[in-house]
């Protein structure tokens, strides 16, 4: 590049031209990003809704439709009205009967937080299913918590009944060594994935201890909400 050409290309004050170029490119790129974000936002929201729906069908067996509520200071609010609070999902069968509720739980696993969704069946006062939403456990070892059939069988009917005072669970959900499960509130751990399995148990215990005593007195609201419309 010769100097004559360079002078031709770069105007009198180069810092102005730099600013003009940088800001116009930044503007164009901002426009592009906003455009794509706007275009894809409804699709992404729909994908997320479908992913939650799929998980809900899995953790609340027999449920057909679902509704999201938020639990805030001991009160249940429809999800649209409020942003703060803990999400609780109610699952209904084809007749609109409440068959179960689902909530999120999380605990520190081996690599990162394990986020999961679990379904609670008020009829048998037990946890009917779990679904891991997000995890970064070691493939082949820690990820047995989503693949191992024996481990998942723990959650066919995991006892989580609340005591008379409605303060806590009668029996805390605990993790026991692989093959020594005796009570319905115990989870049989996976050998080789103890930390990950323990995290699942801890997440369930923490969430159920905190949530279920609050939620059970409000059970009526969950049913009535569905029958109104």
């Amino acid at each position: 590049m010769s100097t004559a050409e360079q002078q031709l290309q770069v105007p009198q004050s180069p810092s102005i031209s730099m600013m003009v170029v940088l800001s116009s490119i930044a503007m164009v790129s901002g426009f592009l990003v906003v455009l794509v974000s706007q275009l894809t936002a409804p699709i992404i929201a729909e994908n997320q809704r479908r992913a939650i729906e799929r998980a809900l069908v899995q953790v609340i067996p027999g449920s057909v439709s679902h509704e999201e509520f938020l639990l805030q200071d001991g009160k249940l609010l429809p999800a649209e009205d409020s942003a703060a609070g803990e999400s609780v999902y109610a699952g209904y069968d084809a007749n609109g009967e409440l068959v179960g509720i689902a909530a999120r739980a999380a605990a520190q696993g081996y690599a990162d937080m394990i986020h999961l969704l679990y379904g609670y069946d008020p009829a048998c006062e037990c946890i009917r299913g779990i679904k891991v939403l997000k995890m970064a456990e070691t493939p082949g070892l820690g990820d047995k918590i989503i693949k191992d059939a024996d481990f998942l069988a723990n959650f066919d009917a995991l006892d989580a009944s609340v005591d008379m005072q409605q303060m806590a669970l009668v029996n805390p959900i605990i993790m026991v060594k692989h093959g020594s499960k005796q009570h319905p509130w115990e989870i049989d751990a996976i050998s080789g994935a103890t930390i990950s399995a323990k995290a699942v148990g801890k997440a369930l215990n923490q969430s159920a201890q905190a949530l279920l005593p609050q939620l059970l007195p409000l059970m009526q609201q969950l049913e009535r909400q569905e029958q109104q419309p």
Partner: protein
Amino acid sequence: MSQRRSDPHITWDSFSEGLWRNNPVFVMLLGMCPVLAVTNSAMNALAMGLATTFVLVASGYLVSLLSRFIPRQVRIATYIVIIATFVTIIDYVIQAISLDLYNSLGAFIQLIVVNCMILGRAEAYASKNRPMKSVVNALGMGAGFTFALLCLGGVRELLGTGALFGFDLFGPQFQPWVVMVLPPGGFLVLGAWLLLFDWLKQRREQKQLAISGEQTNAV
């Protein structure tokens, strides 16, 4: 300017350069972070390769188109802004296509921004060539990158889980070689591929040397 704009003709070589002779992974060893990190399954490798190709092509086109207007002092900053724009776009698009895929690729989609291969192409090729030629070259580079990722992802998934693209190939009695889908497996498989490619290269060079030697002898 005439010096900067090298040969304007689009040849087969402007495409195939990235495929074989200057393969970004096996020859130039660029962009090793996604190469090692996301190739634990063939599907992830393919998605990562395609996403990177899109960013390469789009940013190559724009950089080549705008190269006359970009002052030299701010060219790197400008390239990064352009690249980051397309990375953000592909980030949204992948979220819209499949959330599972998005979750399994994790932060590595955003990290395409700092893939040195893309910045390297923008600086070394796109800014010196015509838009169409840059696009063709970027397509070749992207194809070479995707091919290399698939080589790694395929082998690692096959050995580590006994499946390819999620299809079980060996049946339940297969004992997976778990280390292959873990980070060390990435290094092992990459090393094996590099060994193979270098051996092929050396053999070709020796053959050429032998041919030219014969010719000089004949003369």
